[in-house]
């Protein structure tokens, strides 16, 4: 695997020194992006995001749960990510991999800290709150799962209904209108190869990269960030990428409308 990584990296840097990417995109271009909302009917909200060949499905279910002891008046938001083995020859059935845990946690941080969902409104009665389960299903992995998953999650939330609760139980098939959202959160992921930064890396680019930075934003704030890989980032690098994330964020939000 090491040799493969080195070869992919050499290939990327050679191309980049000529100002090119393998799929002829600019360094700060997204692949064809599409968000389809409401693709499932049994779940309370759903969306499918296509980012080039990457496909991530998000389904939302509501349940009744006990609140966390330190936040007795707040509802529960739980995010899960499944690298379903049909999505890639690299995925295997079994317990969640570190990568899938990282994906779920980064998406969760973005959605949670954006305050898009008002968890206070999920309070039902003492010891009883609504729980929103947001599950991400990676159906095709061609790189940049973070941005595709965040788009799918946001699409599903925008498509989500508020469940009707009666006698401490959710009445399925009935609802109280759509889930109110205060804002929307999108993320931009940059792969670092040598001194270059590439927006929306493909799987081949991720295999050859030295590091990766994900910046999640609302229109006004940065709401989550994650660096992975061994590469170091200068302050200037980070600030440039944050600026680009705000600009590209507006572009991504258009796909959510």
């Amino acid at each position: 695997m090491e040799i493969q990584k080195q070869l992919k990296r050499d290939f990327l840097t050679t191309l980049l020194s000529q100002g090119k990417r393998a799929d002829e995109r600019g360094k700060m271009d997204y692949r064809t992006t599409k968000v389809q909302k409401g693709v499932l009917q049994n779940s309370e909200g759903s969306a499918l995001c296509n980012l080039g060949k990457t496909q991530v499905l998000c389904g939302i279910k509501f349940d009744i749960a006990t609140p966390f002891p330190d936040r007795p008046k707040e509802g529960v938001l739980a995010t899960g990510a499944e690298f379903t083995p049909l999505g890639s020859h690299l995925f295997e059935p079994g317990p969640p991999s570190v990568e899938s845990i990282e994906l779920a946690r980064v998406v969760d941080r973005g959605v949670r800290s954006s305050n898009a969902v008002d968890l206070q409104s999920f309070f039902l009665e003492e010891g009883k709150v609504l729980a929103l389960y947001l599950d991400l299903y990676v159906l095709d992995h061609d790189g940049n799962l973070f941005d595709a998953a965040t788009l799918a999650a946001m699409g599903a939330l925008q498509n989500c209904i508020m469940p009707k609760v009666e006698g401490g139980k959710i009445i399925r098939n009935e609802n109280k209108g759509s889930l109110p959202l205060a804002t929307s959160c999108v993320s931009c992921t940059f792969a670092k190869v040598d001194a270059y930064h590439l927006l929306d890396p493909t799987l081949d680019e991720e295999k050859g990269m030295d590091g990766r930075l994900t910046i999640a934003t609302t229109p006004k704030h940065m709401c989550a960030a994650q660096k992975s890989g061994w590469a170091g980032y200068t302050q200037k690098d980070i600030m440039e990428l944050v600026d680009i994330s705000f600009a590209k964020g507006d572009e991504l939000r258009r796909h959510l409308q």
Partner: protein
Amino acid sequence: MGGSGPKPKLLNSDGSRLDGRKLEEMRPITIEARVLNDADGSCLLTWGRNKVLVGVYGPRECIPRHDQSPYRALIKCRYNMAPFCSLEEHNRSGPSRRSKELSKVISEAFENVIIAEAYPKTQIDVYIEVLQSDGGTRCAALTAAAVALADAGIPMKDLPVAIAVGKIEGKLAVDLFKDEDNFGESDNPIAFAPRNWEVLLYQADGLLTRDEVEQGLELAKEAAKKVHEVQVEALKRVYEKPHPPSVPLATGMFQ
């Protein structure tokens, strides 16, 4: 059967079923093959409200090595339900006892038709994800898996197809949906090899008389013929194009 609470009526006064179907009528089925990019073969099937996605990988190296056979490929089907698939509560991810059993019987059905001797020391992975469930998911799963295997170019003697028959309010009915499955008297999923109508998967719960078993097989066979046509059509669509472009999932399927 597994239903709790008061048993609702399952037939309308005019003898039709709750969703308006006749007893021998199936829900609408659509099948689209080659919907995933990385998988060697894939299929998205909608059957009423059921939505099943299948990806096939292989034949590829058998892992763990001590599982491998020097004579044949191992067929490893994995039936799994998405946490958000049901109308009811959120499911925990990971295999349940039920999904392990279904994975086993589906794998065994395919052992009958796949020419596994052609690929010794390998495995063929068939990953089945139930994205939305509404009764009859194992039949939908097997039907979709057959199309995905054929799409992957795995040599098979036949293209298996499955359908459930059951009993509601004392009458045999084809293709039970969830409420009929939960509150009906019997559920009897059956898979066939259409070339000779051998039964490749057979399960039943609830009570059936000998005659009902016989009629059930016949009803299932007639319905399976129609499902088989949809399978063949889906495969023709992808094989008639010489090199089909990889398409985004579900053009028009996820409506």
